[in-house]
């Protein structure tokens, strides 16, 4: 069995990434079935808004884990619901804090905010964090992800958020340092706004901004720690033996290396092999051969699995298990 698919420290998280339509969902479903059969309590979660995990398992899935077989649970996250929930949370927070804003019709504003750039990534990250927080319930958690672009942005988000938080903590520390210096001479600084007097906090422990920054940093750090730990996270890229998926896999490999997320394996799906020569697909086969050669030469540090093109799409637990065995065992 491949080491990077097994739980080592606590639970194992596996992200299955790749271009749209290469077979990410089938591969992740197959992997989950194979791991569950080998006795690991496995949860497979679809983060892809296009949701076809349920189609592969031939059952209806919701955002609550549904038991499909012994040790096998599956769920499909409803991204629209998640984004709405995420915005609702922000809205409540805002309404609670700025009571005077309730006169403005905030609902209208939040309706537009759901289309604001980046919201989907934050909501996805929030969903991943909530699943990871309850990670101890499982041995392996498999994420069937949306097409590469969005996934890479989500996986990069914790690192970027940490950089932001650190930078803001640094400035905040300087502000508080100055406040302490001034307080030593003048006593506590007061700030009056619209007749209300506030005492400006000067210690890190009493400053709500610093407290919030630290809390946020801790939350993001937890996700970042899981994502960058080779003992807890693995990424599997799925591609077809064609040039465009190869380019995309190459880019994903580079960017995950930059963010220190372990990239362990490439599954080359739908590899065509023929026993006798067929002139009609000769060009296609030559192109496939070229891509395979390039992958072998380029990705020496990752494991490569070739999955043949099946006459029928592998759906249902039995077929998925056969395919999963190829991915798990090699």
């Amino acid at each position: 069995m491949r080491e990077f698919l097994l739980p080592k420290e606590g639970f194992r998280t596996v992200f299955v990434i790749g271009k749209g339509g290469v077979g990410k969902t089938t591969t992740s479903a197959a992997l989950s079935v194979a791991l569950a059969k080998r006795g690991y309590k496995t949860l497979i979660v679809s983060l892809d808004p296009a949701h076809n995990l349920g189609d592969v398992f031939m059952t209806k899935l919701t955002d609550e884990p549904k038991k499909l077989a012994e040790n096998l649970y599956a769920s499909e996250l409803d991204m629209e619901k998640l984004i709405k929930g995420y915005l609702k949370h922000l809205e409540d927070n805002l309404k609670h804090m700025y009571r005077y804003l309730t006169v403005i019709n905030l609902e209208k504003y939040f309706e537009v905010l759901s289309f604001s750039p980046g919201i989907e990534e934050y909501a996805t990250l929030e969903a991943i964090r909530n699943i990871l927080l309850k990670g101890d319930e499982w041995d392996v958690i498999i994420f069937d992800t949306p097409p590469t672009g969005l996934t890479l942005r989500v996986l990069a988000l914790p690192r970027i958020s940490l950089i932001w938080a650190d930078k803001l903590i640094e400035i905040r520390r300087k502000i508080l340092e100055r406040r302490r210096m001034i307080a030593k001479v003048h006593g506590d600084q007061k700030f009056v706004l619209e007749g209300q007097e506030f005492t400006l906090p000067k210690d890190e422990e009493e400053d709500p901004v610093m407290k919030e920054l630290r809390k946020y940093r801790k939350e993001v750090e937890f996700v970042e720690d899981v994502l960058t730990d080779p003992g807890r996270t693995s990424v599997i890229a799925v591609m077809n033996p064609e040039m465009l998926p190869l380019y995309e896999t190459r880019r994903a490999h580079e960017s995950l290396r930059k963010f220190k997320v372990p990239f362990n394996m490439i599954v080359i799906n739908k590899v065509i092999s023929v026993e006798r020569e067929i002139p009609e697909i000769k060009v296609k086969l030559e192109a496939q051969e070229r891509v395979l050669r390039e992958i072998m030469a380029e990705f020496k540090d990752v494991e490569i699995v070739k999955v043949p093109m099946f006459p029928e799409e592998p759906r249902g637990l039995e077929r998925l298990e056969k395919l999963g065995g190829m991915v798990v065992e090699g």
Partner: protein
Amino acid sequence: MPKRILEDIRAFLKGFGSSFKDQSTEYIEFEERELENVFALVLMGSFVGIPSPPTTLVVRLMPHMVKEMHVMQQRAVNMDDIFGEIAGMFDID
């Protein structure tokens, strides 16, 4: 009568001391205001066309930022006379 003179002297010394105190922290206060302004600006960067931190973080910090937002607003109001403020601080007439 001597009591009043004593009170006057005390008030004079107090004013003298407080003026020294004010002068001694003037630069630090200026620096603090600038840092608060930068902090608020960084958080609200998207309004002025610079990249801003994750939305979640901004929304979580905003409710505690009354003073910083006030400083930022004041800074925007006094923007046209920023050199005047610095010149005043260095006693340049």
